[in-house]
């Protein structure tokens, strides 16, 4: 479960096809994905594996022209 101190308003965007275990549906790349059911460690792992990206980070990348 989510640990104390997590920013519950953080939103993420899928960067690959994701099977959402709570919503029981596929999240297409580019779609927003709710990760409230995951722990910080799990979310960090998904970010590190390029499965999802925090929306704010992604926007920053796009502004910097580093996103493909």
């Amino acid at each position: 479960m989510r640990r104390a101190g997590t920013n519950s308003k953080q939103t993420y965007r899928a960067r690959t096809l994701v099977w959402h275990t709570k919503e029981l549906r596929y999240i297409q790349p580019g779609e927003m994905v709710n990760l409230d059911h995951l722990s910080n460690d799990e979310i960090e792992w998904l970010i590190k594996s390029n499965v999802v990206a925090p929306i704010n980070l992604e926007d920053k990348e796009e502004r910097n022209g580093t996103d493909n």
Partner: protein
Amino acid sequence: MAQTTNAMSFKSNKIEISTNGTTYTDISGFANSIEVGGGDRQSGEAYTYDGDTAIITTGKREPIEVTVKIVYTEGTGDPFEMVRDAYEDGSALYLRWSPKGGSTGAFQFTTSAGYVTTLGYPVGEAGSGDPVLIEFTLKCASITKSVVA
């Protein structure tokens, strides 16, 4: 690249079955093996008088056949009955599996709607003490990789 430390065996595989592609039933406690065949992309070739090698072109991908062995049991809603129903009705069936067990971040491979083209019935020899296994083949158009989250 350095030698990987992330290799895995198939012992933790999770396999699920569905009749609608939305609600899946975990049959890991019944499934014994899974194999995938087919799916080759069609290709062609031609030679010209100029040059020494072929011109190669590609076409469409062929259907995929997923063959699964399961332990034969007779409970209502057990995998054998689900598969037999789909086989006899000619109705769609979906399979998905996750080699790492389906936890967060694990890859998951999901078939498109497929049809049971081959169903093995329970058979065996009197001298064997092995559990009865049956095998079925699901023919589908594609398999999609996703990540569990």
